[in-house]
């Protein structure tokens, strides 16, 4: 199992060095991985449908409770089969679709990465592991949407998709960690036990909100739906795979997976019904105003995702079963329609539904696929879509209270609109007369038309013989959602009842709508008038505003004036030091053990302060330099008084050198210009005084603490015994810490080289600009 999940990652790594060999026919080889995985997961069908969930455990970071725990139950199996099954067809399809593309190897690498990540999401039993894979799907989706990276719109849309799904993932992590923390385990399986506790906890609404945000962003629910139509910039196989059949259903998977842990309360039901309801109606409505085939499919996908959220929100056994069925129904017909669209786009060069017609004459097998998939999405009897739609109506009808009427009418309206959209995408391009410009179109390579046909046929097969999938796959999937077994075979014929009536109404009204209404560019522009209130634009404006305020903030802080930076740093340091000083205990104002003061020391101190006053106030550069020379000599005298002869000598030498250097180099410079006005000088004076005062206070606090003299003692005792030197300071520098001194010499040498080369550097005329 571990190998099955991680093989995609491994292969995607292998494609980096070896991807360039994947050219021409050889590209088909890439499909062997998903096909093999599909077969592998098929082998689990008997065991899982018998109700035995398969658990695989591999230790990873046991100390943090993160293990590679994989669990294969009905729900996971349904998704795994979708991922690997549709994945196989997509891999085959892409080998023809992107034939000769220079980055085909890279494409397969992303696709493998995505497949592995997606399998990881649906198989992980550990929420943290699930989160890691969840983020990986977002990232691989980002790469795939931006696959045509020389197109600005692709780059923009991939960033938007990453921002939305990544932001949602961030919130989801909060929710998952909270869940794990409260229930004391990060294993979903073990969380089932503490579901009552979690639901009663005060943080339950917060957990739900966070988890919902993750699921809604991933599954493109209103108001986060806008990234999905943008994601259609990806190559069509990607749109079919990620953005209709699998990745966008990860949010649905998450909700379904967590239903036994968190679901069934009002907090769960109403947000999901409201958001799902709005999404399905809003985007179904949007889809009929599109003329771009992929746009139509994108919005109808969002709408279908809305239906799924809605069903999981209702949360009855019937609704969950309907959701399981609808996941499969939708994946089959939507992937088929996308792939058909891909061929049309590939062959005709346009996806504008108003321009496409009569293609049945040249692309016959695709017309079949489009028709069958369109019919399945329309929910005609004997298609799988029919069963799905019936189950949805049944689920909405059988909710308690006043809800059935509202929910059912919502579902009916959505389905009418979706039916229209399905027919528009599946039927419209193939009917009517063939324009002459499309006359010389020929059928593409068989790898491009068999996958959509196969998927569409499967939709019909499951519809005509629901027993193929119900007890083996769909019942266990729904059972996993409610955590108890279900046995209700799907039926085509329920007798004459309300559900059939509703189904019939949907069909008739949808067909009427299709016949009456022609898609046109005018309706697109009509819809565009409402763009400025759409969530996409609101988000766009928010981002712009954020960028603007960041720019203002940066300009304020990073304004190019050194003294402003310094002022900020110093003020902050004063604040921090003062805060610690005055809150860290009583502040002492005097020193406990004072040495005596002699008059000559006071005179030296007085000279130093006078020189400082001169330095700060003088307008003459030379006077200022002389004054710091005086300050240096005063300090030198202090060293002499207080038993530091070496320091005094060094200070004396260095100070003299500094002054000489200053004077030599700066002799010819004009006197200071006083740039600052009086108020600025006062402000700086106050800041500087505060800083000085704080340092003095700190010095007093430190002096009142006892100092540890062990190290000094050691040096003093051993200076002669070990190092044969009597001047302890010298011994420390050249013996005990000799290495430090050597590096100090190195630093000085580097500085000397710098000084020398700067002085010697001749100035060219061109440099003096």
């Amino acid at each position, binding site marked *: 199992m571990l190998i099955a999940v991680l093989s995609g990652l491994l292969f995607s790594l292998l494609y980096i060095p070896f991807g360039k060999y994947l050219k021409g026919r050889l590209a088909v080889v890439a499909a062997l991985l998903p096909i093999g995985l599909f077969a592998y997961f098929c082998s689990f069908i008997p065991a899982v449908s018998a109700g035995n969930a398969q658990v695989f455990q591999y230790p990873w970071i046991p100390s943090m409770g993160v293990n590679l725990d994989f669990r294969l139950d009905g729900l996971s199996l349904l998704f795994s089969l979708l991922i690997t099954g549709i994945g196989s067809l997509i891999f085959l399809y892409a080998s023809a679709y992107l034939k000769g593309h220079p980055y085909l190897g890279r494409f397969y690498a992303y696709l493998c990465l995505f497949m592995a990540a997606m399998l990881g999401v649906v198989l992980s039993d550990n929420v943290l592991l699930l989160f890691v894979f969840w983020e990986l799907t977002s990232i691989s989706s980002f790469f795939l949407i931006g696959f045509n990276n020389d197109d600005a719109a692709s780059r923009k849309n991939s960033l938007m998709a990453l921002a939305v799904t990544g932001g949602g993932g961030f919130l989801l992590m909060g929710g998952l960690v909270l869940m794990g923390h409260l229930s004391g385990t990060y294993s979903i399986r073990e969380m089932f036990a503490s579901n009552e506790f979690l639901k009663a906890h005060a943080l339950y609404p917060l957990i739900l909100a966070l988890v919902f945000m993750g699921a809604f962003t991933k599954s493109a629910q209103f108001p986060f739906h806008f990234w999905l139509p943008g994601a259609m910039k990806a190559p069509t196989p990607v749109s079919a795979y990620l953005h209709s059949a699998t990745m966008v259903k990860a949010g649905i998977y998450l909700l379904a997976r967590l239903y036994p842990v968190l679901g069934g309360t009002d907090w769960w039901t109403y947000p999901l019904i409201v958001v799902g309801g709005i999404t399905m109606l809003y985007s179904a409505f949007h889809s009929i105003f599109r003329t771009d085939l992929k746009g139509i499919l994108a919005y109808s996908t969002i709408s279908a995702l809305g239906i799924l959220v809605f069903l999981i929100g209702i949360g009855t056994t019937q609704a969950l079963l309907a959701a399981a069925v609808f996941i499969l129904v939708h994946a089959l017909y939507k992937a088929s329609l996308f792939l058909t669209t891909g061929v049309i786009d590939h062959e005709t060069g346009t996806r504008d539904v108003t321009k496409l017609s009569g293609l049945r004459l040249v692309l016959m097998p695709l017309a079949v696929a489009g028709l069958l998939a369109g019919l399945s999405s329309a929910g005609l009897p004997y298609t799988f879509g029919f069963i799905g739609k019936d189950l949805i109506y049944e689920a909405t009808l059988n909710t308690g209270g006043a809800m059935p009427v509202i929910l059912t009418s919502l579902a009916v309206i959505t389905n009418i609109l979706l039916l229209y959209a399905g027919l528009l995408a599946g039927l419209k391009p193939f009917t009517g007369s063939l324009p002459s410009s499309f006359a010389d179109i020929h059928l593409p390579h068989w790898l491009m038309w068999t996958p959509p046909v196969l998927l569409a046929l499967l939709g019909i097969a499951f519809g005509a013989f629901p027993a193929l999938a119900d007890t083996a796959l769909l019942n266990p999937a729904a059972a996993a959602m409610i955590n108890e077994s279900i046995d209700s075979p799907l039926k085509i014929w329920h007798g004459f009842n309300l559900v059939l009536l509703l189904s019939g109404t949907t069909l008739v009204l949808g067909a009427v709508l299709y016949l009456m209404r022609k898609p046109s560019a005018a309706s697109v522009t009509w819809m565009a008038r409402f763009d400025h209130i759409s969530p996409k634009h609101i988000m766009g404006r928010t981002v712009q505003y954020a960028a603007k305020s960041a720019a203002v903030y940066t300009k304020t802080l990073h304004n190019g004036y050194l003294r402003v930076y310094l002022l900020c740093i110093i003020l902050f340091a004063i604040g921090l030091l003062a805060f610690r000083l005055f809150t860290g205990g009583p502040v002492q104002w005097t020193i406990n053990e004072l040495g005596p003061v002699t008059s000559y020391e006071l005179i030296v101190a007085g000279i130093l302060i006078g020189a400082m006053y001169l330095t700060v106030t003088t307008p003459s550069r030379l006077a200022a330099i002389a004054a710091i020379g005086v300050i240096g000599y005063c300090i030198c005298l202090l060293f002499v008084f207080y038993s530091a002869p070496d320091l005094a000598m060094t200070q004396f030498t260095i100070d003299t050198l*500094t002054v000489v250097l200053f004077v030599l180099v700066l002799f010819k*410079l004009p006197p200071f210009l006083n740039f600052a006005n009086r108020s600025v000088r006062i402000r700086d004076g106050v800041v500087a*005084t505060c800083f*000085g005062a704080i340092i003095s206070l700190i*010095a007093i606090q430190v002096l009142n603490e006892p100092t540890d003299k062990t190290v000094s003692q050691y*040096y003093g005792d051993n200076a002669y015994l070990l190092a044969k030197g009597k001047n302890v300071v010298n011994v420390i520098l050249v013996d005990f810490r000799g290495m430090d001194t050597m590096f100090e010499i190195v630093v000085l040498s580097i500085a000397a080289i710098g000084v020398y080369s700067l002085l010697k550097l001749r100035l060219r005329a061109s440099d*003096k600009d």
Partner: protein
Amino acid sequence: MELVFVILIGVLYAGGIFMLLRRSMVRLLIGIALLGNGANLLIFLLGGITKGKPPVIGDAARVFTDIYADPIPQALILTAIVISFGLQAFAIVLLKRVYVLVNSDDLDDLNTPEEEDI
């Protein structure tokens, strides 16, 4: 005497900070030098000051027989003085060079060419 030291340290720090905040590059350098002196004096003070007892062992003795000033702060300050000289020497020459190039020691004059690049 320690209080006198404390006051001197405060004055050195305050003067250094004040000079750092000026627009003139020469004053900036002077500020750095003053801060360096202040820091040296602070280390010297915090190590404990002892009058007239340098950490040098007498001619006849092999170990200290009397109390002596703490050698460690002195070793540290010695290093610091030398290093800050290296820094100042380099900075002074750099300043000279900048002055030759832009003909000003106003820090704000250094901003403009960079911003024109952007």
